């Protein structure tokens, strides 16, 4: 290890130090000053973002390795990390309001979230099986605890338990696959693995290893048939935590798929393409169909997540630079969209009751026209209606699979995204064409409203100026 190694991982070190510091600061803050923690956390993200941007990797060809090749910093890592910071910053602002209203205000939310972010960054920058696994575990362990943050809520405890057990099983499977990979190739470094797999050629062991690795990735993304935990966890966790789980970990899971499948197992592209095709098609079909039947917004968004992850996989399975950049674009836009949607849910929530039933959205336009308009933009974007950014995301991944000749898959994706738009539009219909059940005012602090407005309008602006972000993603591969 040299000083330059530390320099390459500077943002990670900064986040780690700040997470520990915030833990200590929180200990000495009086109850009514807890908002400070949120402020410091957002500042931390800001500075970490500056660190990444200031010393960013110039282009995709200049990857910097550190710590004996266990850590890599390349263009994709930098872009994903910056978007992690942006999304998490928004989540922190939203969460502050939520935690206040639900009397859960504690520094641990921020500390665990920052550790989760650290895990995501480690995973995004992983260049060895060890770092992939450790980053993943860091994310998982933090999220298990966060899901059970509201200890007196039985649903939260149940969701955390399910998440923990299924998550440990998935980690075990992934680890089993990794151990086989190590057994065959004799190396932990992803680039070395790619080299020896290319030489090894057909090998039954490698196929088994691949199956386990793909299962691990599918579980973390929440792709069908490894999606069982998603609805329960989304539903049971406090909304601030659901929002978090829907944002940063998805970006990290995308990075994990790229690191393992593209960086590590690219010689077996034919094999994993077939597996991912099945996963993607099933996720899109099941996610969209089941979401229609939901009357609970959190569950509905959970199934919508499943279908979105199916779309994301479309880009990955294309196996081309175009596909990867499309999937990356999808992951980033999805994280921003879902954060916004949950923010609307939080804003509508009253003390102790989350606005999770669809009926809570009836006549929202009459109660708060701005909020209704923002939700409209978010829903349109999720449905993939043109001009909104969600449309371009879907368009790019479908184009990517068309380019590799998977016409039938593209047809399935389009058909089911049309079917899926039904449930997004239902929310819009409830907001604009139904009478409100209450006339309670919907309020939130100024910073909350500001960030939410930016978040909603961004759906439109990012759609109109999509080229900039697309160019950023394309340059990553």
């Amino acid at each position: 290890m040299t000083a330059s190694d530390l320099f390459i991982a500077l943002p990670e070190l900064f986040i780690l130090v700040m997470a520990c510091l915030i833990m200590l600061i929180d200990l000495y803050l009086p109850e009514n000053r807890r908002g400070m923690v949120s402020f410091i956390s957002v500042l931390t993200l800001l500075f970490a973002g500056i660190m990444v941007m200031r010393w960013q990797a110039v282009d995709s060809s200049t990857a910097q390795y550190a710590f004996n090749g266990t850590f890599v910093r390349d263009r994709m890592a930098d872009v994903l990390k910056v978007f992690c910071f942006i999304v998490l910053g928004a989540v922190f602002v939203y969460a502050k309001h939520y935690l206040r209203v639900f009397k859960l205000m504690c520094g641990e939310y921020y500390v665990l979230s920052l550790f989760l972010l650290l895990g995501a960054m480690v995973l995004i920058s992983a260049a060895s099986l060890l770092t992939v696994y450790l980053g993943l575990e860091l994310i998982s362990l933090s999220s298990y605890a966060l899901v059970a943050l509201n200890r007196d809520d039985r649903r939260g405890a149940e969701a955390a338990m399910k998440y923990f057990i299924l998550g440990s099983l998935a980690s075990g499977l992934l680890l089993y696959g990794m151990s086989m990979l190590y057994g065959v190739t004799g190396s932990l470094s992803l680039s070395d693995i790619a080299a020896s797999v290319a030489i090894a050629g057909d090998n039954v062991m490698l196929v088994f290893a691949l199956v386990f690795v793909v299962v691990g990735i599918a579980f973390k993304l929440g792709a069908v048939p490894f999606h069982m935990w998603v609805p329960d966890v989304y539903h049971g966790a406090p909304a601030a935590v659901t929002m978090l789980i829907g944002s940063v970990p998805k970006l990290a899971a995308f990075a994990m798929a790229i690191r393992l499948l593209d960086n590590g197992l690219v010689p077996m592209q034919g094999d994993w393409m077939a597996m991912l095709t099945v996963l993607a098609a099933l996720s899109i079909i099941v996610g969209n169909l089941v979401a229609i039947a939901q009357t609970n917004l959190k569950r509905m968004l959970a199934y919508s997540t499943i279908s979105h992850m199916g779309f994301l996989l479309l880009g990955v399975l294309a196996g081309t630079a175009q596909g990867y950049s499309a999937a990356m674009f999808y992951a980033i836009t999805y994280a921003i969209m879902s954060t916004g949607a949950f923010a609307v849910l939080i804003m509508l929530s009253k003390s102790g009751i989350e606005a999770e039933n669809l009926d809570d959205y009836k006549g929202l336009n009459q109660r708060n026209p701005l909020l209704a308009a923002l939700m409209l933009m978010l829903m349109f974007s999720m449905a993939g209606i043109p001009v909104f950014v969600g449309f371009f995301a879907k368009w790019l991944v479908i184009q990517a699979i068309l380019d590799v000749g998977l016409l039938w898959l593209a047809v399935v994706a389009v058909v089911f995204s049309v079917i899926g738009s039904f449930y997004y539009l239902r929310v819009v219909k409830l907001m604009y064409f139904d009478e409100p059940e209450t006339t309670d005012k919907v309020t939130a602090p100024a910073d909350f409203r500001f960030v939410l407005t930016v978040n909603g309008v961004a759906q439109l602006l990012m759609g109109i100026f999509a080229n900039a972000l697309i160019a950023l993603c394309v340059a990553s591969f």
Partner: protein
Amino acid sequence: MSIQVLVFYLFGTILTLSALSVITVRNPVYAALFLVLAFFSSAAIWMLLEVEFLAITLVLVYVGAVMVLFLFVVMMLDVNLSRLREGFARYLPVGILVALVMAGELLLVIWTKGAEKLPLPPGNPEGFSNTTYLGERLYTEYLFPFEIAAVILLVAIVAAITLTHRGRSEGGRYQDPARQVQVTRDERVRIVSMPAVKDKENGA
């Protein structure tokens, strides 16, 4: 057959049998104790591989600390075994299937790699310290994963405390040891002066 091979088979047999017993015995305390035995036997097998640091650490950490706490919990539980065994027959076919698949994979590993192709590791040179080697590797080559693993443990601590610590409830009675040790004689003992005369008439 050299004595090493004999020892290996001895501990291998104990390990396999105790591992089997962990999942078959009815009494959870027995299961925990068999797990201790399994850890101990695997430590002995590691000893044979001349990795004494790992072997001793296995005993120290798992047998000496983790399993003690495990046993601690298991002893206080009143596990209803009959309820645990419900649905055993129903899950049995799936279980057997998974076990067969796993066994098949293990065989594949042995076939593709071939046990005969894997020579015994060469003995360590004179003066080789397994502990030093491990320490050097961990703090140089694997420094980054090692530190991240430490962070994971930290998160585990934070998570456990977040989920269980409820702070001191108001109105509860607590002792303040700092105040207790500062107690002086004058606060507790009062010297009463009495006339030093024996009352002979009522005296015992």
